[in-house]
């Protein structure tokens, strides 16, 4: 940020400044031409939809268009808040997300720390490469593989359970398993890839810090605790803020795939509800209202946690 000068801007100074800007623009006209397609892309597919948000407060009718449709105020929002399963949906959305964060934030850090303690470089790189292979599997295939594993008749997991004398569990029939299945299968896909970022951050820690700690007689654990962890703290903070900011988004494409009529009580989240009411049932305005509610809560959480991180004297997004 530039420091504002207290001097009053004279008319002459202002026009000189304007001329300077004009010269800059003209000299770099090529850069503006280069960025133009990208700029128009953002205008069309990211800012134009913002204009369409107003249908959340209207009764959108395709024939009348966005502007022509009548205003109805907060009707769609109150309808959403009054649906008898509103609290279930909100609980599921937050529950799945928070559970996912509690598991998903520390796990890759721990894995990266473990990788980092392997001395043989070649072995380390092989196990790390294997660990993020699941990241490249599509979500459809990932859910397909999950279903193979939990099938009550042929699944490997039930095979293990029966082998040890238990009786097979029909995981998909009982809604109470849904959150666990979702979160832990998600961890399977994400842990290796997320750990990669921490590994990169650890590589940036100056080796003399470790040497100094060693000379001071710090044990392996103490070195991890006092050197490695503080070294990757900024990365941990940035990634945590980002994921907390996405807390309302869940992994909606995956939830949709895993959802059945049987587990709906635990699997319906705001975004799947928005998808069904909007795309399947074509209640555009209502669905837009649900989506807006979701986005606003998300945005507030992001700003809130960023502010907390800043207060705590840690890294923040802005």
């Amino acid at each position, binding site marked *: 940020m530039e420091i504002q000068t207290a001097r009053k801007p004279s008319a002459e100074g202002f026009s000189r400044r304007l001329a300077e800007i004009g010269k800059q623009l003209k000299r770099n006209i090529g850069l503006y031409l280069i960025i133009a397609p990208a700029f128009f892309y953002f205008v069309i597919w990211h800012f134009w939809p913002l204009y369409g948000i107003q*249908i959340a407060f209207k009764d959108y009718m395709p024939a009348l268009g966005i502007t022509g449709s009548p205003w109805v105020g907060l009707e769609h929002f109150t309808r959403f808040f009054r649906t008898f399963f509103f609290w279930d949906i909100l609980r599921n959305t937050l529950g799945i997300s928070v559970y996912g964060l509690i598991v998903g934030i520390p796990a890759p850090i721990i*894995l990266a720390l473990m990788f980092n303690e392997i001395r043989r470089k070649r072995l380390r790189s092989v196990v790390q490469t294997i660990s993020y292979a699941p990241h490249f599997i599509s979500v459809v295939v990932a859910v397909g593989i999950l279903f193979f594993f939990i099938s009550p008749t042929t699944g490997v997991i039930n095979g293990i359970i029966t082998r040890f004398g238990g009786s097979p569990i029909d995981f998909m029939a009982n809604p109470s398993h849904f959150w666990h299945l979702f979160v832990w299968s998600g961890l399977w896909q994400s842990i290796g890839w997320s750990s990669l970022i921490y590994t990169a951050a650890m590589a940036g820690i100056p080796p003399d810090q470790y040497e100094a700690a060693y000379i001071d007689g710090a044990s392996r654990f103490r070195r991890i605790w006092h050197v490695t962890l503080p070294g990757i703290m900024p990365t941990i903070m940035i990634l945590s803020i980002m994921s907390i900011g996405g807390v309302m988004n869940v992994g909606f494409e995956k939830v949709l795939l895993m959802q059945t009529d049987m587990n709906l009580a635990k699997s319906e989240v705001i975004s799947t509800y928005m998808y069904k009411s909007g795309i399947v049932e074509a209640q555009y305005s209502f669905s837009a209202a649900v989506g807006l509610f979701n986005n606003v809560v998300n945005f507030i959480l992001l700003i809130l946690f960023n502010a907390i991180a800043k207060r705590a004297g840690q890294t923040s997004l802005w």
Partner: protein
Amino acid sequence: MDTIKQTPGEKAFEAVNLTLVLLITIILLYPLLFVILASVSDPRRIYDTFLLVWPQGFNLESYKAIFENGDIWIGYRNTILYTTVGTAINVFMTILGAYPLSRRRFYGKNVFTFLFTFTMFFSGGLIPTYLVNQSLGILNSIWVLVLPGAISVFNLIIMRTYFQTQIPVELEESAFVDGCSDWRLLFKIVLPLSMPIIAVMILFYGVGHWNSYFDSLIYMTDRDKFPLQLFLREILIKNSMQDMLGVAVDEQYSQRMMAREGIKYSIVVASSLPLLILYPLLSKFFEKGILVGAIKG
């Protein structure tokens, strides 16, 4: 570090750590391994053993079955088309967006950066975006799959960081002295120097297109335009649901069920094949992409 003498405690620590890491790695790898092994096994014998660690009765019947399936070919063709066109657009647009933002002389850099990154945190949402695509008249066409996601802000930032750190200003200045325009500079000098990051971008975007299903689920209505992932969804997810609802079990039915199970495994392998083959070769590039991105969160 390697010169430091190890105490017995340290040695024990290493042994425990290594064992745990290997165990975790096996757990992470096994689901993929299982599917590959099951796909080449005799479907009736997959479940004979406790844990599949070797193909049971080597058998490629299910691969034959999926290649006789017309849907799979349609899906493959469409996915290849969408991935190629989509990735080309992605990379081109990302370069155009990232390059000016990486130049200090670009007046208004911060405004553009703010506008672009803002979209990462607040969006119009599903329906308003749908309505935009509807007004553009691109529903049920390839364009609705390749244009709305033309630039990922995350990748844009990675690319900008690369340009910022790897393309020296002096290079530009000497090019300008020779009377080079910005456009020529970008394509003749900057891009040839940026091949590593362009490779990373091709991989990131390409994998994204290959694996995506949701956009096609919303926007594509003609079956002959479906990408592979939508057919996979029908076979893997919808069928699984029916199986799990548990229908009557007679001898023939269970035979058919088994054959169908075998098909599922081979279809997973066949659809992930390009990535499974390329993955070990490309892993270096992926890691590089993450490293470049990690420089600036």
